């Protein structure tokens, strides 16, 4: 829970106010439209009208018999566009700030399940495996680790290797170095990208252009990057434990969440979901085969 009592009060008031304008399943059905919040991110939302999450939510909209609508958002506004108030992570916990208009009903944009995010939104059952890797340009002096059988050891090896290196990161995302106590455990210098103006897809060009020695990158994005910039980047090793992505729902949309989980179960069981994943992330099966069993 939030540590500041004032924030607590404000948080619950905001929840209360939001619930007055509840946008749960019934209202969405009445409205006849499911609004999908997202931003172009890897192959989840390609920006060309398709992507794994676009197709997933389109399928869900069809499942609940409403129209689908994509509502573009920004990395920094994505929670606010769902709940009506922006939220961010801090050393003290979740911080709620600016009230902004609610624009959507679900967030699906390769949203990694993080503890602080769980306080802001309800997550569906996991939809995608993830993790965070350290990626450097090919001609960097950083050397990929020699993997051990332990992920923790591998993380430590990576952290050691980046001492005194510059590393790109993004706060309030899964690439937030605070999540992995990097500042405490490494001597690396972090360059934090502006959440307002920078998109995830800018990270690789930044390191290729020597803006930094390396960058944090989640696994799905790294897989795309390896394909996009062959021979120009290299994976050094893991920074995080294995993570999972999911679809985010307003706290006051429990029925919508339940319905989505039902839908997800159906398409995972009938193979529709795996086919979707195969279409956008064919390599992910080898990264986390158990997840898709």
């Amino acid at each position: 829970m939030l540590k500041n009592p004032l924030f607590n009060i404000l948080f619950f008031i905001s929840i209360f106010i939001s619930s007055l304008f509840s946008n749960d399943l019934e209202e969405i059905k009445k409205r006849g439209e499911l609004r999908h919040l997202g931003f172009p991110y890897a192959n989840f939302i390609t920006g060309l009208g398709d992507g794994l999450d676009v197709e997933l939510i389109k399928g869900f909209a069809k499942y609940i018999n409403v129209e689908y609508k994509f509502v573009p958002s920004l990395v920094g506004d994505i929670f606010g566009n769902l709940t009506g108030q922006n939220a961010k992570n801090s050393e003290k916990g979740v911080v709620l700030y600016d009230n902004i208009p609610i624009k959507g009903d679900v967030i699906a944009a390769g949203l990694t399940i993080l503890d602080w995010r769980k306080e802001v939104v309800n997550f569906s059952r996991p939809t995608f495996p993830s993790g965070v890797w350290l990626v450097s340009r090919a001609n960097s002096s950083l050397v990929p680790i020699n993997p051990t059988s332990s992920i923790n050891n591998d993380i430590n090896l990576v952290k050691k290797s980046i001492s005194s290196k510059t590393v790109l990161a993004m706060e309030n995302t899964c690439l937030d170095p605070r999540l992995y106590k990097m500042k405490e455990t490494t001597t690396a210098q972090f360059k934090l990208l502006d959440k307002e103006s920078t998109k995830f897809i800018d990270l690789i060009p930044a390191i290729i252009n020597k803006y930094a020695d390396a960058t944090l990158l989640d696994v799905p994005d790294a897989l795309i990057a390896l394909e996009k910039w062959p021979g120009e980047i290299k994976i050094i090793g893991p920074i995080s434990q294995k993570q999972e992505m999911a679809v985010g729902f307003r706290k006051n949309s429990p029925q919508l969440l339940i319905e989505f989980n039902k839908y997800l179960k159906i398409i995972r069981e009938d193979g529709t979901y795996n086919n979707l994943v195969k279409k956008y992330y064919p390599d992910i099966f080898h990264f986390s085969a158990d997840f898709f069993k």
Partner: protein
Amino acid sequence: MFSNKNIYIIFGGIILVSYIFALIIITTTDQKKIESYEKKEINSFVQSKAVTLEYFFNVLKKDVSNISENRILSLYFLNKALGMSMEYGLKVSINKIDRFLDKFKNSQYIKNSRIFKDIILINKEKNIVSENNRNNLIDLNSLNIESANEASIYIDNKENEVYILKNIFIKEKIVGTLVCFINIEGIFKELVIETEQFVLGSKSKLITQSKQSIDLILKDNKYKKIDIIDTPFVIFGKTSDINEKSFFTKWLNIFLAFLAFPILYILYHLLLLNNKNIKLKEEIKNSLKEKQNEKIMLQQLRVAAIGEMIGNIAHQWRQPLSVITTQATGLKISLEYGNEISKDELKKMMEKINNQAQHLSKTIDDFRSFFQGNINELHEFDIRNTLDDVRKLTKDTFNNNFIEYHNNIEDCKIKGNENILIQAFINIYNNAKDALSEKTLIEKYFFVESKVIDDELIVIFKDNANGISKDIIEKVFEPYFTTKHESVGTGIGLYMTNQIITKHFKGSIEVENEEFIFNNKKYTGAKFTIVLPIREF
């Protein structure tokens, strides 16, 4: 000996057989020509197949060359060179390679056949990099990757596999090699189609399936061999049509040749049939001639019989005429000399004359009824009446010769022409009369006996004229055989009797000499036994 028909048959047979042989010769000659044309055709056909395969393999090599340059293949080597680990990034590269190779492999079809059996990526150490495609179809250590800078086709003779090798370069250095195993059977089947006629091989071994070995194919002149340029392949082609047609022609010729046998067989039997016809005609002709002769003889017999009858009439008439003459002469003398003749005497004399005249008239009637009969008319008659008639006709003759007549006749009715039978019997009577009159015998006997045994009437005529000489007894039924003076006998009497009994009455007649006792005296004579069937005919 050959009739005209036989000559026609033989001539027809020769023409037919010649026609068949001409057909065989023409067919065989035509076949040779066709084979010659087809040989030329197959040569160009094999050439066209070789060109097709050459073009196809060139395109295939180009395709392999193109995919070898795809960055997905080199990415693995790049990432590996960058030191990336399998767990973190490198495995993804391998997966991409697998997917890429799979996609390429699965998209390469020629009609319904896959072009590639498998495609693997190996590194410089000849270890397989790709994970999905790990079918180790050949010993990789035997690969000569140094020569695979350009996509080239190779044959693994040990495993009978065909593959394309193409090295992968990064900055002009070989980092790996693509090994593409070709589904050569499938490609060959789809491109060549007529796989029965064509075989693909190297210079020392066959690659596609064939019933024959390479050695046999190399020795077989029917196979045209053409090297497929820029490949290690040789295509061997022959035309199955030639074989099939040769096979057909061969059997057609054999059939035609064998056709000659039944024709000859039929002709042979036609000849036999014709000969039989000729014989039959001869026999019919002879039979008709015989019948004609028989008719003539019958006529002669009739004439002879008439002669005999006239003799008999003369005998019959002599006595009554003598009585009439005596009575008439006595009456005339009495009238000339004025002797008185009483009315009773005159009446007696007139009655005598009248009686004798009546006798003469009856005699005439008897003979006339005999001669008037139609010999072709069949009717039922009693043998007793017949023998009585014969007796009447011969009675006077027998009496004049003092022959004693004895009979023992059993009634029996038979069918036939009675007059002819009378004629037959009269001949035997006359024969006996002549034999008895020639002999100076005190007692002259003629016995007639008839009896019925089962379905047969047995008639026996027997005399006591000492029998017939053994030298001639077997010839008495032959025509124109006679022991009598030519003024008396014609030699056809007993022959005609034999003919009448055997041919007209379907019976039999035998003659033998027999010793017998009559009135306690022993006699010898000829015995004629006639057997007549009692049935309708």
